[in-house]
């Protein structure tokens, strides 16, 4: 076990815990912000401003009776939530939280792993996440959960493609898939006449950013795209039969993946840890928070898509746009390199 493997292992544990903590308070933050937006107070009983609410929820879920439906396929019923919950944080392994710092004499770089296909790794993990949903829906032997599971799977797959393609524009410009490289690329400044603009990809790839945003929201079954869990029609979608501790897995998995995809978006489009004064992980946190705020904001304002609209949007609107974007970026890049 050589040195940097150990250090990256430790750093991974650190990241995991940070994520879990953030995830917990993310629920609280969401309910607080939504309440604010809806001109109401939000949880304030537990703890000074309701700060202990997440812990309370957690304990509640743990204590609740854990029912397994009779006809359910027991093993898969248990496996499904685990699968989703495990996969969500794993995606964060590639996100660079900074370049490298030295701790106790060991030089520790602030990213779990910098693999050549980092972005694609992220997509891969995202696509594996689908299994959690499907198997959950299937295992609970309940029509509605099955339909919910299938619907959300279809949605995730469609938007995953859009997500992937939207990143292609960035890859063309950056020339590499590894996030570290992308962040470094974005650190130079761009002198447009008097204006000094950070060379973030949001500026050179605005359309890609918008599509990425939509796809990200849909990917995590959040806000306008949360049809599967839609109470009115499918009674909570695939996790209808789940209760207690297993339900929390699904619920938390959703929030972790939301955080992770915001981090990912920030690194790709908003320059990650790069900031006007001193680069650091706090810039990354700030940008991620912007994303998260956008999520919550969306949840309170935009009405739910109907399923066919949702799919239609993906295949008939976003896909062509993203392809055009790739085409344009390709031409620009070629023009830029003078090869045209």
């Amino acid at each position: 076990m050589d040195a940097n493997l150990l250090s990256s292992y430790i750093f991974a544990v650190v990241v995991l815990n940070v994520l879990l903590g953030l995830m917990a308070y993310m629920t609280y933050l969401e309910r607080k912000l939504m309440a604010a937006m809806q001109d109401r107070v939000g949880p304030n009983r537990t703890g000074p401003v309701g700060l202990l609410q997440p812990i309370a929820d957690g304990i509640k879920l743990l204590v609740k009776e854990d029912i397994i439906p009779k006809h359910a396929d027991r093993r898969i019923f248990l496996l499904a939530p685990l699968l989703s919950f495990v996969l969500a944080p794993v995606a964060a392994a590639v996100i660079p939280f900074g370049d490298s710092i030295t701790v106790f004499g060991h030089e520790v770089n602030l990213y779990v792993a910098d693999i050549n296909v980092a972005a694609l790794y992220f997509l891969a993990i995202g696509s594996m996440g689908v299994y959690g949903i499907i198997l959950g829906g299937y295992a609970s032997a309940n029509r509605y959960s099955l339909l919910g599971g299938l619907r959300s799977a279809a949605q995730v797959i469609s938007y995953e493609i859009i997500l992937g393609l939207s990143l292609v524009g960035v890859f063309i410009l950056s020339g590499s898939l590894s996030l570290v490289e992308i962040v470094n690329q974005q650190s130079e400044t761009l002198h447009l006449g008097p204006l000094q603009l950070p060379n973030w990809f949001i500026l050179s790839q605005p359309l890609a950013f918008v599509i990425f945003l939509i796809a990200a929201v849909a990917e995590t079954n959040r806000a306008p795209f949360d049809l599967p869990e839609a109470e009115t029609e499918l009674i909570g979608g695939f996790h209808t039969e789940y209760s207690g501790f297993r339900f929390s897995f699904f619920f938390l998995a959703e929030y972790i993946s939301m955080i992770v995809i915001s981090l990912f978006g920030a690194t790709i489009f908003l320059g990650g840890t790069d900031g006007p004064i001193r680069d650091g992980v706090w810039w990354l946190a700030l940008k991620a928070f912007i994303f998260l705020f956008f999520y919550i904001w969306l949840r309170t304002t935009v009405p739910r898509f109907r399923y066919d609209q949702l799919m239609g949007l993906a295949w008939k609107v976003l896909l062509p746009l993203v392809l055009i974007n790739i085409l344009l970026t390709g031409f620009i890049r070629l023009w830029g390199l003078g090869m045209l």
Partner: protein
Amino acid sequence: MAAEVLVFNLLSGIAIVSAAAMIMMRNPVHSAIALVITFVNVAAVFIMLRAEFLAVVQIIVYTGAILVLILFVLMLVNPDELPDFHGARPMQQIFGFGLGIILLAEIAVAILTRTVVAEPGPWTEDGMAAVGGNVQAIGQVLYSGYVLPIQATALVLLAATIGALFLGRPDEDEEPTPSRRTVATISLAHTRGSDQDEIPALSSANIKHEAGDRDLIMARDADEFTSTPEDDQKGQQE
């Protein structure tokens, strides 16, 4: 460096065991899951063989899309109703296994007694690193010598999508052959007011006859329950 071999053997062991499990499982969903495990392990093997890009693609395309589709169809066919016909006729099974073993023996012999003819090419490990990694290397090779195959693959994919569209749409006029029971077709992707008129209206007699052994749940498309503005006007005019 024994670790590498160890890991490899571990991965391939899991892969082989889960593959075997796949064909042994009674419930197709279980075998699908076994297959997922196999594919993940195979992806890991790819990484070990310095083919990161392909590993990821394997995960995204195979496990992420194809298997999911298979699970889709599996579920659409009312999984709990799948008749338990695990194995085919006994004769077939014996022949199948026998043939498998013979083929294995043959390939084993071939592997063990192979004589290497080709000489190693340029893309060694550091060769790839020099270019910037496996993805860049593949990109260079792919777009230098294989432009035509790419066009061809593009065409194949186009044809496949059109085919899927065509196959996916249930034929309006074709009367489903009366079989043991009528299947509820769940139309997942129909926009409002699509021209697909739903399953022929089931007359009461029809339902009685069909409903015989179990409760029949007919899922309708949204149109039937939600009346569109035009329908209302039409309703008023009649």
